[in-house]
């Protein structure tokens, strides 16, 4: 019996070997060999085989974070960007999806949260350890909103480490510069909400805006740009188009400029900045968050701020660390408005392309990632080229493009490609003490309107994050370490390895 099994296995192995040999020797004879899918696939393998790990020490590290741009949202971004360029969309390649970029999946949960928020996720990237929900750069023993647990739990940030290596540090965001992701570059706080004040009696930390000013005075931050101007001016004081809200009466902008910091608050003052590296830069372009890219007027784009930051920081011959955040991809997802999510996503992709164009792979590690995903989801079975904002169209029997016929659900109504599991777009509306409803009918024109909210299920005022993985993409020194499925705090350790490699 044993003998017969052995013979059978030997026979199967021989067949497999002969089949492989046949395929190898006749690869170009395969009926599909001339297909672009086949030749492109061969080229992709060649590109992967040509990869050589870059073992240089990184002089510069740039981390670009699209807040809330998990794998699903990034899929929508790929299609939207492609469709804006006249493609069907699915075939599009975003600037960080080329073979030059290594990538991995990232697990984003917080110490005490399955669904993460942006404060501890950014903190994990900036300190190398996971952190607690709604807190920034404090160890796991600190407690939310408890100022008394700050002292002794402060973590050392990557910006502090590289400052010790005489590098410069920059932080750019389209959200308030005191918001979670940018704050994680320079702040340590028991609450991400303490942007312009701390509770009475709290003497273990100052508010986040003051921490930024302290960091700029200490030389830990050299370039800062974003929104949130109101947290830097006394309540009701107006300056440069900003209106302050600080109850303590501090004028942090005056403090900064008196200390030699350059200040910009609009397009014109942005263009007038001296980027020679002689004087630190502070740009605050809105009282709160900067405008969505779709609505932007009178203030720089994320790519323009990225260019200014790199031009400024690259004047330091010892290099720099720069964190850039597209903060409002997240906000538009919270609104359930895919149009602004994706137009801000395109602005992010353009910032990545700008950073890549202005730097050298030999000495600059570029990391592209997100902090978390959202409760976004995708319907099927849509034909190729279905407008990612619009209705799910049927699959065509011939050719590639969809058949132009909206698919109908069991209720006889069409549906969009994108949907949200929860949020303001819920098909259930408040009706007395309960929620009830039916899906509204929908036309393509309504669905692709810039202000349309894709249909959602669970009614919530604000759509939520999700715990789903995000991706990380990287090129430059030690980018090849991004592989497999990693914890989010590993990003810090790759950055640290890259800047300290012997």
């Amino acid at each position, binding site marked *: 019996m044993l003998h017969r099994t052995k013979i059978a296995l030997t026979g199967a192995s021989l067949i497999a070997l002969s089949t492989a040999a046949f395929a190898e020797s006749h690869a170009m004879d395969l009926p599909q060999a001339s297909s672009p899918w086949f030749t492109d696939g061969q080229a992709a393998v060649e590109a992967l085989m040509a990869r050589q790990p870059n073992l240089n020490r990184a002089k510069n590290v740039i981390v670009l974070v699209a807040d809330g741009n998990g794998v699903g949202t990034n899929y929508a971004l790929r299609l939207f960007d492609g469709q804006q360029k006249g493609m069907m969309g699915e075939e599009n390649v975003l600037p960080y999806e080329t073979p030059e970029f290594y990538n991995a999946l990232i697990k984003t949960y917080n110490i005490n949260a399955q669904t993460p928020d942006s404060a501890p996720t950014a903190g994990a990237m900036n300190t190398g350890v996971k952190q607690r929900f709604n807190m920034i750069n404090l160890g796991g023993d600190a407690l939310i909103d408890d100022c008394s647990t700050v002292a002794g739990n402060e973590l050392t940030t990557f910006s502090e480490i590289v400052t010790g290596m005489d590098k410069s540090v920059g932080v750019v965001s389209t959200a308030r510069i005191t918001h979670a992701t940018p704050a994680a570059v320079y702040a340590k706080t028991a609450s991400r909400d303490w942007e312009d004040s701390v509770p009475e009696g709290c003497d273990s930390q100052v508010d986040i805006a003051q921490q930024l000013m302290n960091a700029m005075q200490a030389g830990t931050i050299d370039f800062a740009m974003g929104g949130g101007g109101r947290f830097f001016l006394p309540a009701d004081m107006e300056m440069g188009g900003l209106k302050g809200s600080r109850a303590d009466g501090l004028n942090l902008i005056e403090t900064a400029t008196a200390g030699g910091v350059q200040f910009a608050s609009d397009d014109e003052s942005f263009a007038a900045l001296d980027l020679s590296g002689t004087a630190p830069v502070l740009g605050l372009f809105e009282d709160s968050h900067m405008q969505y890219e779709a609505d932007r007027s009178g203030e720089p784009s994320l790519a323009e701020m990225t260019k200014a930051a790199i031009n400024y920081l690259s004047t330091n011959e010892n290099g720099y660390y720069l964190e850039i955040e597209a903060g409002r991809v*997240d906000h538009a997802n919270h*609104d359930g408005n895919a149009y602004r999510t994706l137009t801000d996503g395109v602005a992010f992709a353009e910032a990545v392309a700008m950073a890549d164009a202005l730097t050298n792979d030999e000495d600059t590690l570029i990391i592209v990632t997100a902090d978390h995903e959202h409760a976004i989801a995708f319907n099927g079975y849509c034909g190729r080229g279905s407008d990612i904002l619009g209705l799910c169209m049927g699959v065509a029997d011939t050719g590639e493009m969809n058949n132009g016929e909206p698919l109908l659900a069991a209720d006889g109504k069409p549906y969009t490609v994108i949907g949200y599991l929860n949020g*303001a777009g819920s098909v259930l509306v408040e009706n007395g003490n309960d929620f009830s409803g039916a899906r509204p009918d929908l036309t393509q024109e309504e669905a692709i309107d810039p*202000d349309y909210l894709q249909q959602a299920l669970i009614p919530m*005022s*604000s759509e939520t994050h999700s715990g789903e993985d995000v991706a990380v993409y990287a090129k430059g020194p030690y980018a090849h370490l991004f592989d497999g499925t990693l914890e989010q705090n590993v990003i810090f350790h790759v950055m640290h390895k890259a800047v300290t490699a012997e």
Partner: protein
Amino acid sequence: MDRRLFLSAAACTLFAPCAALAGDEIRLRDLYNKDQSFSDLALGLDGQSIDVSGFMAPPLKAETQFFVLTKRPLATCPFCETEAEWPDDIVAIYARRTITPIPFNVPIIATGTLALGTYTDPDLGFVSRVRLTDARFARA
């Protein structure tokens, strides 16, 4: 008279409420330019009765004739904002009568007299740049 306005006015009867005019109303965003200045459409309609589509933000207080019309449902995101934030492009609605709130994510059409220019509400302290006065509203 603007044909659209004429149709709106003519159709607002007991048997065919304004809400039946979906598609003829002015979109809130069309009253503003991108730089938040007033659009030519808004300037041309100042002082006239118009229909504007949008959403009712949760009223600031009970038993009120005032609410804010927003172009998208006013999601209140605890992770985005630390305090109440109003979008730049809103319309303050001063209704004829005490309002019955409509859920914030249900499309409505508000009809009233367009008034442009900065105005501070003496009771609420609410500062508005665009208002509809003597207004009524219905689900779209």
